[in-house]
């Protein structure tokens, strides 16, 4: 397991600064993206369909003549919320059982471990498709499915961090001072589990972004005309012959966001993994 050597996130790295800048913009757009668009993201003008970039339409227009730039801005919210939704489900289903597996005895531990193994064998997108196939096609169903698949990740990470801590000598030392479990959790455990979980959450958010766009490509989850990054990308791919450059913009947007999340994960990774 990782040996934690230094406590502070290394935000001074240029990559970390870049990541934070990117994510700040994304966060801003997720909240206000719908209000700062130069055009109505839903406004169609078939006569202007599939035009290249211009001053009025920075990133050009899509197959219905909608402003791609506005759609990307307005789509940030749904995209980010979807990704966060799945990560939230993963956190809820992963972290608590992860801790429970450490505290609630061997039987619970065994059952949880096997259950996690079982979930880990599920192929990502096939499972999401199956869930939406059975429970209905919607963003929530798809994201819950993805979240379920993230749960083992959080489970393992939490458990690993917690496991090394239940055996850590400084925790024993604190016990020897008569510290209560709660105090130990607060002063020694929390500070180490949280960054690890945060790292995983950042990476998982990146993964969720990719999963959302893949599912959108397959027609699962968010439905048009609601704009999303993955949706814009998927639809631009249908018009490659008209605008071969067009998919590059949403693809780059997704890539940059995912890269920023990965860089952020590296930055908050406690002291690097030994």
């Amino acid at each position, binding site marked *: 397991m990782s040996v934690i050597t230094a406590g502070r996130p290394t935000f001074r790295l240029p990559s970390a600064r870049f990541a934070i800048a990117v994510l700040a913009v994304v966060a801003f757009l997720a909240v206000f993206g719908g209000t700062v668009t130069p055009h109505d993201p839903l406004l169609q003008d078939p006569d202007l369909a599939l035009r290249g970039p211009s001053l009025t339409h920075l990133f050009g227009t899509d197959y219905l003549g909608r402003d791609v730039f506005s759609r990307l801005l307005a789509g940030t919210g749904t995209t980010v919320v979807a990704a966060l939704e799945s990560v939230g489900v993963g956190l809820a289903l992963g972290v608590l059982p992860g801790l429970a597996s450490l505290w609630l005895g061997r039987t619970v531990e065994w059952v949880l471990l096997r259950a996690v193994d079982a979930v880990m064998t599920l192929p990502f997108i096939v499972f999401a498709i199956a869930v939406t196939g059975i429970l209905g096609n919607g963003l929530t169903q798809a994201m819950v499915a993805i979240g379920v698949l993230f749960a083992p990740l959080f489970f393992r990470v939490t458990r690993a961090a917690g496991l090394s801590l239940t055996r850590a000598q400084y925790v024993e030392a604190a016990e020897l001072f008569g510290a209560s479990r709660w105090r130990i959790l607060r002063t020694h455990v929390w500070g180490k589990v949280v960054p690890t979980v945060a790292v995983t959450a950042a990476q998982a958010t990146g993964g969720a972004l990719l999963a959302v766009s893949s599912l959108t490509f397959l027609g699962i989850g968010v439905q*048009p005309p609601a704009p999303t990054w993955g949706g814009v990308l998927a639809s631009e791919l*249908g018009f490659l012959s008209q605008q071969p450059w067009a998919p590059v913009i949403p693809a780059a947007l997704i890539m940059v966001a995912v890269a920023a999340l990965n860089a952020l994960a590296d930055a908050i990774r406690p002291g690097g993994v030994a």
Partner: protein
Amino acid sequence: ACGDGTVAGPSGTAGGTLKWGWSSVTSWDPVTSSAGWDVHLLSLVYAGLTKLDEKGNAVPALATGWKYDAAGTTLTFTLRPGLKFSDGTALDATAVKKSLERGRDFPKSLIAAQLANVKSVTAPDATTVVIGLAQADYQIPNLFAGKTGMIVSPAAFEADAAALATRPVGAGPFTLTSYVQNSKATLTRNPDYWDAANIKLGGFEAYPLPESATVVAALQSGQYDVAQIPGSQVDAAKAAGLQVQVIPSLVVAVLDVNIAKKPFDDPKVTEALRYAVDRAALLKTAQFGHGDVAYQPFPKGYAGYSNSLDGIYQYNPDKAKQLLAQSSYGTSPVEVVITTAKAEGVPEQLQSQLNAAGFKATIEVIPQAQATQLVYVQHSKALFVDQFAGRDSAVQAFQVLFGKEGLMNPGRQTPPELAEALAKVSKTPLDDPSYPSVLQAATAIAVKSMPNVFLYSVPRILARRANVSAIPEFTVVQRFEGVTVS
């Protein structure tokens, strides 16, 4: 004129294999096949008593000819002698009788409704089949050119009917030799086909269609010789040096409207809908302009096409607004749910157009496979974005679209004058000079009295590599007489 040899072009060496990109079939059994487009692939392995020529007129096939009696209730077909199914069994009048009766009586049959009017099938001798009809119906030869009339080997369905879904036995131009669901169907030329002389291809391979983004590349790389492409790819295909044929078809985009459901229970709203739709704009985005704006179920040039309907519901949002205001829903935006299997494209655009005309439209996506259930069977949707694949017989088309039991008539109501007009069509022999005008009158009544909103015609766009000769342009069912590949 048996519809053969109409293709100009070099008759290349027989024996080439044509690789065709097309939607795969739901079943190889014409009786249980559930999709309209299956007919194209099915007609590779099955033959009917009749077939349709380029314009959609019934011409002889397995039968050399037919004759109605004076009342129009008895129809006698004369079979070619010595016909054989691909399993080697004889295709005689008895086989035809059994095959037709199965289509009518098989519990899982999806063509039973079309055959409901067939009272009896008798086989007085090996080459004579007599169809007894409950009511006069001159459309039967057309009807028998499609799935309904495809003759299936009784030996095969008597042994194992379920196996037909993957192992068809017919007497078509080709025989299916291997089939992997969603993957590939391999067919070889059937030398016993009655018109084998005109089949120049040695074999046929059908593949499912790829993503529209990659179809041109797939053609270029030689993965397919011919493929159906979306309108958006026409320019790309031409630019890639492919031959593109835009073949008019009976397929038409249509909105199924349920007048039993809100808000269409108010005729004003239904009428407003007709004016609220900008068909030209839809055609442009959906098909990049390939095809025509449609106000009626038939394409221009088809017998049932009525000129009087041209431009009848010209796009007029103001009029739509007015109509809505007069409706019982008042002036506030009228809420409507657009149901579709795929929200991208037309439904999105439709939503925007409706909103501009005083509606408040939302989109609801249902799985394609559930559409039949929810829209056609349970009639639980008010407005469904649909396509009508056309039917071999005009009356049949009317029945599907407007009949009381018609799939695409979720409101389940047919005005009496339409029923009357239709009965008249059935009773008019196809070669009767008044037939077109009778049919056109029915079309006009239907379009004016029924809620279905026709949007645009959907031509069959085929792109082919240079090694393939031109594809004959059949409106209804694609055929391959004379096609060569080198």
